[in-house]
């Protein structure tokens, strides 16, 4: 539901059903609401069958990349004797995204249950849930929920009497966007700087502590118990457009809308419905100018591109952007696109781990060139310079942070070039002081 707003008729409320309901936070409350049935069911099934079921459901990663979850699990080696790990990525920090936070705050046992099912399937005895340091309230709620899950035997040496050991360790981040990248997260858990690692080896071969590891997003894992209890076919049926996008997806809508919040929809729902019906559309007298559909790392879409766009992995790609994390940042006609894009690049410059030259230098210089333009001292050739920088930042680094910085710059110049030109021509008043 559109927490903090009441559920909208166009939503399909599954993961968000208990947002705003503190009763769902306790173990007893979760059991009353049908909780832990999925885990009990999974523990009674052969591991391969659980993985097959998740594969059949069509569930794909909700953290940004959209990789098929069951397939990811199937990459884990079987019975080779090494310890395996599951890492739950709760380092939500992609600008525009605030869905995992609500899952952790309102349905902590759904997260734990999803983690436990995944851990059982991939033969992991230890789960690390990596929660960003700034999420103080989710941390407290999760701490309590984990204690309760142990006390009731859902976790521990003999989870629900199955003979399977499932331990959960909460690991607190300390302020670094890059730790949401899976290999950086593994380094952070190991007590290191959060520098991403070169792949291969992939985490399923050599992940955290050098052991086979699977990393899944909070929302992905929260969907798993529903697949176990209601079946793969039912989940697969939740699809309105592309058959490759199934289930429900939480979209965090923020920026210039009347009702910002989280809305859960069936994959393939029209994007227009999300923005204009569920989130209430623009403020009075304003019109939609642009939006970023999947967190700040994906290309900007114009208002025209929103028309006819289906909210699923393929539908958004067809309009030139990506579903990403589902963080929708809405900008109305009052928005200064150049200044907004500069603020994104400043984010990436700040968050670069500085390991790769293209990223360390590229994010910083992109930001400086945009500051030059915004201070009224831009040159016509600066736009080509920005595009050249973006080219050097795309597909050339260990992780995709620099690609993410380039995305709004390239799409911004392509789609809103006249605003850049206006600053450069002196037709728009500088908004930053000359440095």
């Amino acid at each position, binding site marked *: 539901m559109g927490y903090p707003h009441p559920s909208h008729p166009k939503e399909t409320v599954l993961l968000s059903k208990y947002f705003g309901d503190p009763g769902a936070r306790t173990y007893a409350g979760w059991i009353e609401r049908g909780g832990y049935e999925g885990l009990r069911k999974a523990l009674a099934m052969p591991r391969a069958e659980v993985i097959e079921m998740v594969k059949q459901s069509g569930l794909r990663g909700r953290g940004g990349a959209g990789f098929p979850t069951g397939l990811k699990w199937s990459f884990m080696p079987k019975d080779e004797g090494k310890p395996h790990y599951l890492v739950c990525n709760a380092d939500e920090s992609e600008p525009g995204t605030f869905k995992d936070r609500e899952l952790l705050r309102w349905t902590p046992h759904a997260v734990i249950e999803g983690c436990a099912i995944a851990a059982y399937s991939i033969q992991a005895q230890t789960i690390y849930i990596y929660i960003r340091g700034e*999420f103080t309230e989710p941390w407290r709620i999760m701490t309590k929920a984990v204690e309760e899950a142990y006390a009731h035997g859902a976790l521990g040496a003999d989870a629900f009497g199955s003979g399977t050991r499932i331990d959960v360790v909460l*690991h607190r981040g300390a302020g670094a966007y890059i730790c949401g990248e899976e290999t950086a997260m593994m380094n952070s858990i190991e007590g290191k700087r959060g520098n991403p690692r070169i792949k291969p080896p992939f985490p399923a071969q050599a992940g955290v502590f050098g052991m086979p590891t699977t990393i899944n997003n909070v929302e992905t894992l929260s969907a798993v118990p529903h697949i176990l209890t209601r079946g793969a076919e039912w989940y697969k049926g939740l699809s309105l457009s592309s058959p490759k996008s199934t289930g429900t997806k939480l979209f*965090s809508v*923020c920026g210039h809308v009347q009702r910002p919040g989280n809305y859960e929809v069936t994959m393939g729902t029209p994007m227009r419905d999300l923005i204009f019906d569920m989130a209430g559309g623009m403020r009075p007298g304003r019109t939609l100018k642009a939006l970023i559909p999947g967190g700040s790392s994906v290309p900007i879409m114009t208002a025209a591109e929103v028309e006819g766009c289906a909210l699923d992995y393929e539908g958004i790609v067809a309009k030139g952007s990506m579903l990403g994390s589902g963080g929708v940042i809405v900008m109305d006609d009052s928005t200064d696109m150049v200044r907004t894009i500069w603020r994104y690049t400043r984010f990436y410059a700040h*968050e670069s781990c500085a390991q790769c030259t293209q990223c360390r230098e590229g994010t910083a210089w992109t930001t400086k060139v945009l500051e030059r333009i915004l201070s009224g001292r831009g040159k016509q050739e600066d736009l080509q310079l920005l595009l050249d920088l973006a080219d050097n930042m795309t597909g050339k680094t260990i992780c995709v942070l620099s690609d993410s910085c380039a995305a709004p710059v390239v799409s911004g110049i392509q789609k809103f070039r006249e605003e850049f030109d206006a600053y450069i021509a002196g037709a728009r008043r500088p908004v930053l002081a000359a440095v």
Partner: protein
Amino acid sequence: MSHAAAQGDGTVTSHEKIFTGERRAQLEALFAKYPTRQACLLPALWMVQEARGWISEPAMAEVGEVLGVTPAFVRGVVTFYTMYHTHPVGRHFIQVCTTSPCGLCGAEETMQAILRESGCGELGATSPDGRFTAIEVECLGACGFATPILVDDDFIEGVTPERVPGILAAYK
């Protein structure tokens, strides 16, 4: 002597051990949760900051000694993460999100109000009465509730310039 005393030049004259007694036992309980001691570095640093308010050079050395890594390694990790303080801060630490989504919804005005009302004056500065230090941070992950701020461990949503005096009054 309860605190490491920072001199004007940043050197520290004394260091009372942090990982003794109960805190040491807490840390050792964590060792069982990870296959290496080094993995306890982030939790150990959180414990230092909770105990002392910031992480001094001798504290880094002590953490290194307990976990079996060099002080330089610890320093590298401390300085990578923005939430660890490498110098003393005010009694209350304010973090204000000004990343784009919040920026679209007035975060910079909220930031200015906080700098003014807290007495910090500028980003990263501590108010003359030692009560507040305020910094600007990147995305706090609550973009639908602009502007979110963290005061110590209190996560406060929907902060507007008008609400700032009332919010700060609760922190003495």
